[in-house]
């Protein structure tokens, strides 16, 4: 009987069709790439720059649609630089390993090391002690603690640690997800958006920040010209520019969340009491906890005082290694907790970004973008608004680090062409890349809280557009009023 039900299609044909269906975006990317490759270069674009654009367009399509594993895209970029652009293998290899990539490796190792210390219950204890039992105060506590931590250790680390805290409060309130829909949305988005807005606060908040710092240095710094020293942006300078932007957004996150989702419970007394009882079972903090906090604090001190001399990346690597040396984390944990393919992806994207700048492709794209813009938008706040909107659009379709790696060379050349400050436009690009509130994949924190199973994809749209408007307005206000005051 079973055999009689198995009718249609030869298995080989079915497999081929399934493969073609799954890889349709890969085929599309290849077709687009071949068409661009065969087309004559547009006016003002050299053949070399055209080839860089071919690689970039194909890579962006693959970043956005993910028909093949993303590390494979990274290696395709590397291969294409050798085969299509004719670059020397050693030159391509050198462009892959720079300070930004060291920072990404080191900060991911630190992220895993910190999460493995299981300090989340201590954080939960801190939050419920400070905030009491009112839902609003707990949400404020979660977003403030998430934000303050994410500004230095990266939003993915904080989201991974805070997720069980919020889930515990939700499940202790009710086992039925339908009865706590809005409560879950408020608490989970407090983590996600609290962390996302904070990731721009310091260079160590996210890979995108380190990528932009790397681009400024790579594109504009000339050791023989003292006037270009301003392009060496250190930890303190970044904090002075960006941290106030994060702090200004924090109160609005809570206002937006509570105006969008009205939690079913105004007090979480029962859940908080149970959570406190659970946490107290843990006993006092262990020596390893103090050691971990101490090591992280020393890493932070290193970033603040020595990043200008030995680089953010080196310090991040020292921090990661120190956790291993003191036996706080095993290499096996780091090896399995870090997605090394992502490191390769960022490395390849940065390398391609450098090729875009060197070949003139980034300048051509920037000039083309300028021809689309009306005259009044070519300088000042309107230009910054258009850069911010462009970045927000791109970052909602791919990871924010990849968005900065792809867009950075273009927006920085845009600044150069219009006579605007490359630093201001660079900060606007890096900060706007955090405005990926609309989609699940936009920011690491959003992806992690979505994995809880309590949120719908439509929830991100419902609240995300309000967050985008709020963040964009605050960014432009700071760019227009505050940054000139600090000499940016």
């Amino acid at each position, binding site marked *: 009987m079973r055999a009689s039900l198995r009718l249609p299609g030869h298995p080989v044909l079915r497999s081929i069709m399934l493969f073609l269906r799954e890889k349709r975006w890969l085929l599309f990317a290849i077709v687009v790439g071949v068409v661009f490759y065969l087309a004559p270069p547009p006016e003002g674009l050299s053949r070399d720059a055209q080839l860089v654009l071919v690689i970039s367009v194909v890579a962006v399509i693959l970043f956005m649609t993910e028909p093949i594993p993303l590390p494979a895209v990274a290696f395709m970029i590397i291969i294409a630089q050798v085969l299509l652009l004719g670059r020397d293998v050693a030159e391509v290899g050198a462009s892959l390993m720079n300070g930004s990539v060291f920072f990404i490796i080191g900060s991911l190792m630190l992220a895993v090391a910190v999460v493995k210390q299981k300090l989340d219950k201590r954080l939960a204890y801190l939050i419920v002690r400070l905030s009491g039992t009112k839902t609003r105060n707990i949400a404020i506590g979660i977003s403030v603690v998430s934000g303050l931590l994410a500004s230095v250790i990266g939003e993915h680390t904080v989201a991974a640690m805070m997720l069980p805290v919020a889930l515990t409060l939700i499940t202790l309130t009710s086992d039925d997800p339908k009865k706590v829909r809005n409560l879950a949305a408020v608490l989970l988005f407090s983590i996600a958006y609290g962390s996302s807005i904070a990731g721009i606060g310091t260079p160590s908040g996210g890979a995108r920040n380190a990528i932009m710092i790397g681009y400024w240095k790579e594109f504009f710094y000339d050791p023989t010209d003292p006037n270009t020293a301003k392009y060496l942006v250190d930890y303190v300078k970044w904090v002075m520019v960006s941290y106030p932007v994060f702090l200004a957004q924090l109160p609005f996150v809570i206002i937006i969340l509570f105006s969008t989702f009205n939690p079913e419970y105004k007090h979480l007394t029962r859940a908080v009491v149970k959570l406190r009882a659970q946490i107290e079972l843990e006993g006092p903090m262990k020596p390893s906890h103090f050691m971990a906090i101490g090591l992280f604090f020393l890493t932070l001190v290193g970033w603040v005082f020595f990043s200008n001399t030995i680089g953010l990346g080196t310090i991040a690597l020292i921090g990661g290694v120190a956790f291993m040396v003191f036996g706080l984390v095993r290499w096996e944990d780091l090896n399995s907790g870090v*997605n090394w393919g992502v490191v390769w992806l960022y490395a390849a994207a940065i390398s391609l970004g450098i090729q875009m700048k060197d070949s003139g492709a980034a300048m051509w794209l920037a000039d083309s973008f300028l021809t689309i813009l009306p005259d009044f938008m070519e300088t000042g706040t309107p230009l910054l608004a258009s850069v911010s909107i462009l970045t927000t659009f791109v970052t909602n379709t791919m990871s924010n680090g990849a968005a900065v790696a792809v867009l950075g060379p273009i927006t920085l050349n845009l600044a150069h062409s219009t006579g605007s400050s490359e630093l201001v436009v660079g900060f606007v690009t890096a900060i706007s890349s955090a405005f990926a509130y609309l989609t699940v994949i936009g920011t690491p924190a959003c992806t992690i809280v979505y994995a809880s199973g309590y949120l719908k994809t439509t929830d991100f749209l419902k609240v995300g557009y309000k967050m985008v408007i709020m963040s964009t307005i605050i960014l432009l206000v700071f760019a227009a009023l505050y940054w000139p005051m600090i000499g940016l």
Partner: protein
Amino acid sequence: MKSEKQFQILVCIDGSEASYSGLRYAVRMGDDHSADLTLLFVRPVDEGLSSGGLQLEIARENMLNWGHELPGMRALKRGRDMLVEMGFMEDSWKEQVVHTDVRGDQLGDNSIVYTNEEGAKITLEMMVSPSVERGILDEIEIGEYDITIIGMCAEDETGSGKIRPATTKAVVSQSPTPVLVARDLEQDHGHFMCVDFTDKAIEAAVKDAKIAARCHCPIYLYSVAETDDELPIALDVVARARAAIEAAGMQVVSDTVEVGNPVEKILEQGRKYSLIVMADTSVKGFRRFFQTSVAYEVLERAENSVMIVR
């Protein structure tokens, strides 16, 4: 080992109400434990980029350390609890936990197999796969199921783990076995079995009749002639289908033939039944991917459940 005589039902669970209504229907089909049930939740493998390079497993492990279950396991256990409530399963059944390592994913595939003394089997399976669609199709291929039940969520119901409508359609188009697409599946309104003018439609009608017999569902035969000229052919095919079903030992409550647009007529008449049953006869191989058949249009537009039989 699976018994040869046991009917195999795969129910794709995603936590949506549609998937649980499909499960209730599966219980009815497997009355008296005449079928083995597999409840499947597919978790797409984490690519890592969207979580910023930190493996999502780190967050998942943290959830487990706090005593929280993964969303997929929650959905599967709700399905198991429903089976117990409906009396299809008892707490006394033997439980066996099976873990399979999957390269590139620390949590791997996990399943709980429940068996009773008569050999009836219920499996809760949480599978990791490059995509939900690929996972379901692989399971259909490996498990040699007789029927697959998959919920059709509304677009605004899609959430973490929920099977997207596009995935459901892809599974239907590529599955080698009958697929029942459940949308708030009501049980007592019978199978509205649509036959076109091909021999394969009659074969499919007999197959569906056997499935309907499992859940004691009444069968209503239906065909549409696009023009008056085709009416005799439609009448003939319905009569042949009826004869074939009755020859196989089952009863048909009614047979009806109308003239008009097949899709519109089927949607109009079919909405009051539990299931609209369509034979996927026009499409094979390449054609299935490039040709829109009546069956797929009905699947797309129907508001109630649809079963595509091959």
